[in-house]
């Protein structure tokens, strides 16, 4: 809390939140573009229904406004860490499947992967400012890569990107919520109450 109380920490947090919001916005924009490209290149139907991706927390959550800041950050971090693993798997699969034949899609995937990593870094930094520190990644091991067929992998990739797009929206809202001064608690929100 001491770090959070210092003016520099407050500025740092505000800066992290602000840039995180914009990063989330850009990430959503890029993911939406990537979705179109992915559907087209993978020969999928944009309206295809995809089951929830295993290992990724659902973006939609009940009683969202009742969540504490830390809770939001932790959920976000968990989600993006999962996305980072999934996107890395997708990128690897893409390279194995197409090599350098579809470099644009590969570059787009890599770009999104970088943004996911960057956003995860933002979340970790915010959590550090909260004096909690981010949970170690060992605590949340990545889901093992299931042995799926090619089409299933494509569908799973489509599901990952769709979920990422939703999370980008939610993350922006979460960070925006964090920047709002909580009533009666000054600049520091009652993140300590978070589990």
């Amino acid at each position, binding site marked *: 809390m001491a770090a959070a109380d210092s003016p520099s920490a407050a500025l740092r947090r505000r800066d992290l939140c602000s840039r995180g919001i914009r990063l989330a916005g850009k990430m959503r924009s890029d993911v939406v573009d990537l979705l179109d490209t992915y559907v087209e290149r993978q020969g999928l139907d944009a309206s295809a229904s995809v089951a929830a991706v295993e290992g990724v927390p659902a973006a939609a959550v009940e009683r969202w406004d009742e969540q504490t800041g830390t809770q939001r950050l932790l959920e976000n971090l968990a989600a993006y860490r999962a996305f980072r693993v999934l996107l890395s798997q997708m990128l690897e699969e893409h390279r194995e499947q197409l090599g350098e034949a579809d470099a644009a899609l590969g570059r787009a995937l890599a770009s999104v992967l970088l943004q996911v990593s960057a956003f995860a*870094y933002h979340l970790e*930094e915010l959590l550090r400012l909260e004096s909690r520190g981010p949970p170690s990644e060992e605590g949340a091991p990545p889901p093992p890569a299931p042995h799926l067929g090619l089409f299933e992998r494509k569908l799973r990739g489509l599901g990952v990107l769709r979920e990422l797009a939703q999370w980008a929206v939610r993350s922006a809202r979460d960070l925006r919520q964090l920047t709002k001064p909580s009533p009666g608690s000054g600049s520091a929100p009652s993140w300590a109450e978070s589990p």
Partner: protein
Amino acid sequence: MFSGWNWVAYGLYLLLNFCSLEVSGGLVQSCGHIIPESPVLALGSNFTALCILNESCLDFGNIYANQIIWKIKNRVVPKEQYREINRTVSSVTFNDTSSLATPLTCNILADGQIEQNIYGIAVTVGLPPEKPKNLSCIVHQVLKLTYPMTCTWNPGRHTFLDTHFRLKYRWPQENFPDCIPKDVNNSCTIPDVQFFVNLEVWVEAANALGKAESDPLVLDPIEIVKPLPPHNLSVNSGILPTVLKISWENRISGSVMKLKFNIRYRTIGDTNWMQVPPEDTASPRTSFSVQGLRPYTEYVFSIRCMKEDGVGYWSDWSEEKTGITTEDKPSKGPPIWRIIDASRSPAFWTVRLMWKALEPFEANGIILQYEVTVRAKSSLSSPPEKYNVNTTNLILKLPNGTYEVTLIAHNRVGASPPSVLLIPATNSKAPVKNVRTLPKDGKLWVGWTAPNSYVLKYVIEWCLVSNSSDCVIEWQNEPGNVQGTYLKGDIKPFKCYLITVYSLYADGQGSGQSVKAYLQQDRPSKGPTVQTKKVGKAEAVLTWNHLTVDEQNGFIRSYTIFYKTVDGNETAVTVDPSETEYTLSSLTSDTLYTVRMMAYTDEGGRSGPDFTFTTQKFGKGEIEAIVVPVCLAFLLIVLLGVLFCFNKRDLIKKHIWPIVPDPSKSNIAQWSPQVPAKHNFSSKDQMYPEGSFTDVSVVEIEADDKKSFSEQDLKPFDLLKKEKSTSEGHSSGIGGSSCMSSPRQSVSDSDEGETTQNTSSTVQYSTVVLNGYRDQTPVQVFSRSESTQPLLDSEERSEDHSGGGDGTSQRQQYFKQNGGQDETNTDRPCFERTKQITPTNEGDLVGFAQLQISGESSQLLGLGLEKNTQEAALPDVLQASIEGQTVRPGTVEGNPPSADEMPKSYLPQTVRQGGYMPQ
């Protein structure tokens, strides 16, 4: 400089060379080596090398370390830098590596004198890399989602070594592969960067002597973006004629970057841009309405953008897009002026109204027509006349008077404010003064002094003065508060312009004040052609024509006349430019002069062609002054001579004209026609025994004393005729006749005893004495001439014919010595008179014959008739005469009959049948 590969190659070469020596010398291995092997040294540092001899060589060749010689290339290193460490090791030390060169060799003096190379090394000298400085990065947006970042830095000094640079960057939690520059050492481009995460960037430089890193640069790449400019611009005119709406598309997502903009615009043809106030476009948008534009004007727009907070870089300007504002009604009335021609009719003016088309920013659209209203101020009752025209001039014929002209321009939107021109009957108001011009900055400035009263505006007229074209008037308006302006037109240099300034008042107009001006002067294009108008003995009047305006190229300030003789110095005379004539004086007479003439403007002069003339030898009146006195003197001498001759005429006569012997005292007086035998040459000699006449002597006896004729007097004639008829053969010896030798001429009046000599007839054939001398019976005397010249009988005949009607004149012609009358006829040749002959009847001939005898018609008429009867006995003779005289006189004259052919008649006169021959 230093090249590592070269050093290495050179070292290998030495090594091989050394080994070969060993082989040739029987050695199988090196006798020593140098430590360190091929070092890379920092420039300016100290360096120590050791040469270590092998033990085997010590035993074999008694070689020890104290015999070692160090060399740099072929230069021996001073022994002071050597140090013998032990008997097999020698060291050399260099305090500054800059004195080093490759190779550094270890040599030994074998057997005291033979220097042999033991080993050599290549030394590389350089510098460690400097810390790269001034690292900066920029993210160029090249596509919508592609943001490469280019970083540049200052690599520092040259190291003389192979130095590698790497651009390193990383996130706090993630490293990225280094960016390695290609072909350069001061920049590198990272293909894609992610925004909103701080990126740490630095440069690492490394070579054999070390490694250096720049200060790290921590930044969010979003802060150094140079975005792509907006595109797909469109410009739309709005409802207002002064507004255009510009729209565009941004090529960077709003989620990535919020943008602000700069909008610039200009009119077509203008190069200067105007800019929309930046604060008006400091927020994200995709359109903007530009206001305050001019109606019906085409504008060019361009736009750029950057991050809204101003962190980063402006994009390039977008492509340009044009748009036109809508029309508005004209903002002002056209400037109007007039030209009045009053020369055709004194009572009417031909007024040419002319106005200038409005400038586009004044017209605010397309002018469809002009409405001209002319109102006579003098007669307020008459309604104004309106004219709608599409051109910019209108010619009206108006009675003299004061008029107010109103001009309105119309476009599609509306009408302009009216322009009013007052045309007064007379320009009675105060004019401007002191109109002057000044070329300035390639334009012609006109200035004037304003009159004292308030001037509404000024009108400046000008036109190009030329011989080849009319003066086409151009004009411009100037407000009343100025006293000078530049002419707004294509003013050409070297051309003469006539500039007139008018002052216009609310109630009148001042008369125009004119001045001529040149924008730029030059020398005349040709010089005047001079020629002489009059040349005298010591002066010459030169004349020339003025140069035409087109030839002048400027104001003619003066003429200079140059004249010289062939071998003399040239003399120059300056003449006022208004003159066209000049008199050169003090010239040398009868001398060839060459004259030429130069015309000068402010920029110089040009000479005309040479003209030569020669002065006269004599001055005016000199010849007269010589000739007149000479003539007068001559006349005086002649007069004196005449007077002298007159006074001395007796003496002269005595010497020149000897006294003619008195015929009365001549022997011929006793000559008788009945004695023809005596009429021969011998008798002649007897008659003039004294020889007074050398060749011919003439004695004419005047037979004019008509009154003295009587029947008695005529008797001898009859006798003569008879004698003649009978003695035809005697008289045939007389050859022909002449004018002066006719019988009538020979007749002389001997009453007074005067003799007259005919000087004009120097050849005398005979002398006939008709009258008796001093009351003696006249005898017919024939004096035979020795001359063989034919007689001109036809002349005689013509004289007879012409004198038929007037005996007096007839006599005067032939008896010219009688009383001195009619001397003018004495020289007339006979043939001239012959030509006057006209055919006459016999009556005339009768009369003629009578005249020949007496010359007194009244008396001779009867006598003639009587003679006709008497002469009837002479038909043969007469017939012969008639035949001979009917020949045309000319023919007779041209071919006078010879003495043999001639009739044996004394006077072969023309006598028709029935006529009379006196002898």
